[in-house]
């Protein structure tokens, strides 16, 4: 499952149509430089935009939405120029701000219907799509109650719903997991992944935590102090880790012997039922599977051990793993 997903992503990552293109983007606020000569292409799928607070993520998003003119440079979104075609961009793009942005005295339904109309949807469509979208983000009966009484998690869902209600081609999510507990974080990340995979809407999601984005992003862009640090497909980044963790119910040594005979590099005979094998190619997966079947042992798991993306950013490992 894992390796198939990784391979699929490798193809997505090579997608020729970038949804966001920034060329030499610079934005200064007086003496402060928020973005400095940023050139980056973001493909379709889930793109994680990572950077510390104040790294320039929100500035980049506002430039992409056409709300903030860049000091110099150009940005294109879905093929449209952010500086001149802001209205057209905002018609087919959704935005979830980082900050609190919900009035307290209306219900989620009323508010999202209103914002759907503000995106240009006719009233009847706005109502219908609001009901659908709130259900998709996981708000049910409580959607008729005033937003003032909602938990942080529910508010984040309303914020996400208003970004999705007009069926955009791309959504910009600014720190969607902010303020959520671990369970809420997982749910939100799952939801974001579904937006891309099930709803076929491209996602640009920001976070200051690389760890949470590496799980869901197809592509990671890292900026620091307004400067691009790295732009890399997660598939590329983790493909070369090439280590498969195998766990069997029984007969691990026999299986290891078979694999070695077939020419595989089996490493680390740590546990009685687990071992790892160097993933030299697709044939290794088949060999493990066939070997287990022939020996009649139960295969508990075959897990591709991916490099953590954090490793990419360690300078000493950069050349070795990432850009080869």
């Amino acid at each position: 499952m894992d390796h198939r997903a990784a391979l699929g992503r490798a193809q997505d990552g090579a997608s020729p149509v970038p949804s966001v293109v920034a060329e030499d983007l610079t934005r200064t606020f007086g003496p402060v430089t928020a973005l400095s000569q940023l050139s980056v292409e973001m493909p379709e799928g889930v793109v994680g935009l990572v950077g510390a607070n104040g790294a320039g993520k929100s500035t980049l998003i506002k430039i992409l939405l056409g709300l903030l003119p860049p000091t110099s440079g150009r940005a294109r979104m879905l093929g449209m120029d952010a500086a001149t075609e802001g209205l057209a961009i905002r018609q087919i793009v959704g935005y979830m701000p980082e900050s609190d942005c919900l009035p307290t005295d209306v219900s989620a339904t009323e508010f999202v219907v209103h914002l759907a109309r503000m995106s240009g949807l006719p009233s009847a469509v706005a109502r219908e799509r609001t009901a659908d979208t709130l259900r998709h983000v996981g708000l049910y009966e409580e959607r008729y109650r005033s937003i003032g009484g909602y938990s942080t998690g529910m508010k984040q869902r309303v914020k996400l719903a208003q970004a999705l209600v007009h069926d955009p081609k791309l959504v910009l999510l600014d720190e969607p997991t902010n303020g959520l507990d671990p369970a809420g974080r997982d749910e939100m990340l799952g939801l974001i992944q579904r937006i891309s995979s099930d709803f076929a809407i491209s996602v640009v999601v920001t976070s200051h935590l690389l760890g949470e984005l590496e799980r869901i992003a197809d592509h990671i862009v890292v900026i620091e102090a307004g400067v691009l640090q790295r732009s890399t497909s997660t598939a590329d980044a983790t493909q070369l880790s090439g280590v498969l963790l195998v766990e069997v119910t029984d007969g691990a040594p026999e299986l290891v012997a078979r694999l070695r005979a077939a020419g595989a590099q089996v490493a680390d005979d740590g546990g009685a039922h687990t071992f790892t094998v160097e993933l030299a190619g697709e044939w290794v997966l088949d060999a493990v599977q066939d070997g287990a079947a022939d020996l009649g042992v139960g295969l508990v798991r075959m897990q591709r051990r991916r490099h953590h993306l954090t490793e990419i950013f360690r300078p000493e490992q950069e050349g070795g793993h990432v850009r080869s």
Partner: protein
Amino acid sequence: MSGAEPVPSAIPSAVPARSAASAAPAADDVIHDIGFRHYDGQRFGRGWVVRSLLVETVRGVFGLGRPARAKAMPWALIGILLIPPLIIALSILLTGGDQLPVSYTQYPSSMSLVIALFVAGAAPYCVSRDLRHGVMPLYLSRPMKRSDYVFAKFAGLSISLFAVLALADTLLLVGALLTKLPVGDQLAGWAGGMVTSAVLAVLLGGIGLVIAAFTTRRGLGVAAIITALMVVSGIVAMLVAVADQKGYPTVASYLHVLDPFSLVDGFVTRLLGVDAANGSTYPPAPLGAVVFGLVIVGAIGACLGILVRRYRKVGVV
């Protein structure tokens, strides 16, 4: 395909009470997850967006689509505004007078406190709420411009105010007509009342929104607007009296431009040649109408300009 075969036969056996015809309704019992549906239909442009925001603003001012407590204040004030016309109509009916005790153009000025309270309740709802809760980024990320938001809110509040003022004047007209006062005179007076209502609505809407846009804290905006409208009225009335006493009647007549209510009243009085409210004296006809008219236009323009400026940076930095 063949996998569907056992299902129809299984239903009658599992639910014997159902007839064979209920096989179709039984299929409806299943909740289908139809997934995320895409929308390929029409998407309207800025015109529709501004219109929608305007309608939403008008609805909200009257508390529609908001909790019950948001409805209490506007409707109580509207009730208060509508009672005098009823009493006036009744009194004419009973005492047999031949004219209204208060003219259509004077009525808004005589009810200035209630109108000021209404503005004080409505204007903060229109703009402070969105600023306080940070809603602006959600509007700005939609196919509209900042100025569209300002325009929609301004128009929405002005239309709401006009509706309230016009309703009170119209009730006065209905009362007058029921008591068989001359129809032609009353209609002419009512038309003047509509002009007064429209000008006053736009001017008060602008002033209210400017104050509300700078006082985002709940309650502060309400207090600031009441203070601005009522205290200014009082101070201007005092200044006018002082100037009159000291022998500067011309200065006194022009001092009225400082109070929104007497500004509009002076303009209408000189424009239409009707009686002034509160027995005020305004500058003579052609010059007075021009000066007061220019001040009104200038004030509304200034309000719009300040609002657009105020919103230039909102939601960006």
